[in-house]
């Protein structure tokens, strides 16, 4: 399955995200990434500082799954959850967490909550989103 984020999703992800990683026995660990290095159609790279990385580093080493949502006003304006497998590439003092996105879902309260969106054709997904929202982060 090919994943293709919409341009609006990419714009929101860039403002920063809450990342949830779990141990392989299911203990969730949340960190905040304030610096998003890049976002492409199916990949987001989060530039984590030492403290941001320290929360998730050990768990990520044993279990690559990452779930994330957009921070700040994105929690309400960008009603999406993204999931994929992550890997770390250290660059000086920065830990680059690259997440290859394989699933994304709508989290809008109501009938669309939990709807898996990456299974729709990309254009259909974009039109669906456009019918609900067109705003970009300020």
């Amino acid at each position, binding site marked *: 399955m090919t994943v293709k984020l919409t341009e609006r999703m990419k714009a929101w992800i860039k403002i920063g995200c809450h990342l949830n990683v*779990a141990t392989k026995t*299911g203990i*969730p660990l949340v960190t905040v990434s304030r610096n998003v290095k890049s976002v492409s159609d199916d990949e987001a790279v989060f530039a984590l500082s030492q*403290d941001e990385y320290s929360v998730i580093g050990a768990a990520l080493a044993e279990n690559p799954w990452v779930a994330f949502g957009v921070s*700040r006003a994105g929690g309400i304006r960008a009603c999406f959850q993204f*999931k994929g497998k992550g890997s770390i590439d250290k660059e000086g003092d920065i830990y680059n967490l690259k997440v290859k996105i394989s699933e994304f879902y709508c989290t809008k309260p109501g009938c669309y*909550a*939990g709807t898996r969106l990456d299974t729709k054709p990309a254009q259909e997904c974009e039109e669906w989103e456009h019918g609900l929202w067109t705003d970009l982060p300020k």
Partner: protein
Amino acid sequence: MVKLTNEMKEGLVVPGKGGSLIYLATSSLDGKPNIAAMRYIDTYKDDKLLVADMFLLKTKANLKENPECTITICHPMDSGRDWSFKGKAVDIEYGFPPDFDWHGAKAKDILEGWGDWHNKEPPDEVPPDVVYPKAAQRGIVVLHVEEIYSIEKGKVGEKIQ
């Protein structure tokens, strides 16, 4: 033993009352994480957080098999509310035995207090393109907080309590 501060209690109410949007994070037992933003948040006693089970799907399924849970402030993040709460949670749904007890929270008290949250604290501040057309509450997630950590820039992961 954790004790929520007054500042935390003031920040952990619905955004319409000056509180916060929160992220509710869970995981399946085999380690697939899930995270979703929630509006209905409150505190109970000194060590519990309450979240409405309004449209929960994967979160509910995860909690049915694995109570491990983290709640983190999502918005606003520039208010000094730099908190992440970890512990074990249960979804107290309608029909739970009234005397069901989750670390000191009785199902009867929780359901009577927060079981009709839409009418208790209607989502008046939620933008019309986001608000749900009809409330569909099925219970209340009760997180028994065991640890509190910082998400403040430069101090992420530092233990507060």
